[in-house]
């Protein structure tokens, strides 16, 4: 169950790393990859929101 949930949630640990503060910023490629994962999650949230609103009888 946890593994299935992990597939749906974003990897926030990948964008809040303590070693960036201690040992310097990550390479641009690594940062872009983490941010792309978050952008994908925002897209999923937006699509779910649209789906939910369009089913509401307002």
């Amino acid at each position: 169950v946890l593994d299935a949930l992990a597939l749906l949630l974003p990897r926030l640990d990948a964008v809040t790393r303590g070693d960036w503060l201690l040992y310097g910023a990550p390479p641009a490629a690594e940062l872009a990859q983490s941010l792309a994962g978050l952008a994908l999650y925002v897209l999923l949230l937006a699509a779910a929101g649209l789906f939910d609103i369009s089913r509401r009888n307002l």
Partner: protein
Amino acid sequence: VIRLFGAIAERPLAAVPGWILGLLAAALAAQIAWQLARRAEAPLRCRSSACTIGPSAASCQPRRNAALARLAMLWLQAFDSRGDNAIPYRGSITRAWSLAGRDSGHRSAQRLPLFAAARVYARNEDPEKARRMYEFVFAEFSRDPNRRWPALAHVALLAKHRLHDLPLARRYAAAIQRQTTDPTVPGWQGRWRSSSSKT
């Protein structure tokens, strides 16, 4: 009542525009595919049985040691930095270092203890303790010269300018020159030889 309320409050699935369904399905598929592709980088769920038995034990152990080493370093620094500590730098940096598993290849966990040894503990007012820390950094340097030379370089500077022990500083500089093979490591020995001949 709930069923009736639900039926009134929600439109049927057919009322949802096709492009929204398509977007939701595509976003869901993309999210799952992305998470599956990056699964190898995700933190391990280290169950106790997996850590002691089975093939995954080897991959769990260094991570656990690295976490322990970081905790030990945090404790040590908090202990030494607190206001009511009458004898600073009494904690054992070597113990924290041994927890980092000095030859385990877990390099990110090793950086902080060696950094602290060179930058904090080697500045001890007691020359004897400072020398012990220099020798500790020197001994650990020779295990991985190409990565650990900055710590020894700093210690060489301390030996020269704080202890005014030029032969010791040159011994460290010569070790950096001799043992490192990385071409990006700066040449220390030649410059120090010329500076010592001037003084």
